[in-house]
């Protein structure tokens, strides 16, 4: 039943954004006031260098693994519009379910950011930005789109190989996909924030808007980049494995 599957997507994306993006916000709040070593550092990395990003990546990794293992059989646990669109583009997901899934993912992400704001208070947005993503100092709009596309390409390639391909060994999807996202975040986190997911950026942006922070200028980066990367990976894998 589509309603139940959409509800599962709401819950799954909620978990992803609350715990994943939430970890980035908390990191910024912990580092608040500490001397930043260089202009490329916005706070994440001030305390533990790349280890800060690894910690954020692990929060995402564990949240993703938890969602895939708990809700994967219910909705497929896409929790990412780019993944849903990529699967549709190669005929692996019905067209009529694409929009409901994306709406559900956006709702889940928004609820997560709003409830995180309610849990932590205004500083979660004013200092932590609710874990929103934006290009880091010196990174252009085009560089950010390219980075997000490459990151999501790897994510989708792994999804294709470990989960979509019927020859893949069963039971590993949640663990491997979670760790892959954790690894990607560790590397490109300090370039774009490493969203890889339009919904993951949408939720914090809505919450930040309510607190007077307007980041919507950057939103197309996190729509165009992930979708291009995911669709390209899906088609490439389909070609390679045919």
């Amino acid at each position, binding site marked *: 039943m589509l309603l139940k*599957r959409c509800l599962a997507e709401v819950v799954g994306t909620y978990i992803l954004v609350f715990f994943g993006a939430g970890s980035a916000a908390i990191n910024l709040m912990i580092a608040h006031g500490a001397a930043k070593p260089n202009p490329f550092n916005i706070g994440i990395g001030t305390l533990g260098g790349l280890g800060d990003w690894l910690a954020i990546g692990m929060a995402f990794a564990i949240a993703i693994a938890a969602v*895939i293992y708990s809700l*994967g*059989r*219910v*909705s*497929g*646990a*896409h929790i990412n519009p780019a*993944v849903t669109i990529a*699967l549709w583009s190669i005929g*692996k*997901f019905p067209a009529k379910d694409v929009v409901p899934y994306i709406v559900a993912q956006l709702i889940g992400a928004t609820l997560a950011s709003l409830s995180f704001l309610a849990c932590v208070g205004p500083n979660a947005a004013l200092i932590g930005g609710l874990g929103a993503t934006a290009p880091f100092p010196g990174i252009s709009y085009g560089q950010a789109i390219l980075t997000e596309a490459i990151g999501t390409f790897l994510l989708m390639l792994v*999804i294709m190989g470990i*989960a*979509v391909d019927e020859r893949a060994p*069963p039971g590993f*999807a*949640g663990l491997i996909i979670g760790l892959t996202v954790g690894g990607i975040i560790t590397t490109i986190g300090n370039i774009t924030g490493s969203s890889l997911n339009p919904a993951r950026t949408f939720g914090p942006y809505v919450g930040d808007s309510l607190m007077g922070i307007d980041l919507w200028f950057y939103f197309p980066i996190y729509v165009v980049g992930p979708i291009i990367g995911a669709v390209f990976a899906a088609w490439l894998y389909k070609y390679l494995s045919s």
Partner: protein
Amino acid sequence: MKCYICKQLGKDTDAVAICIVCGMGVCMEHLVREEIEVWKGDYPFPAKKLKKKIPRILCVTCYEAYQEG
């Protein structure tokens, strides 16, 4: 093969099936045949219940154990 349960009761009845759990040979009187639902699908596809079910034959003892959970 003879029905194990009948043999215990002192009867000599031919077995018509084998319990999938304990391997006991059972006659028609001492077997339980059930249709088991089959689901297909896992991440990133929602699981779907297949139209066709798989038959499962158990002896009465194993069937009752399953019913108890």
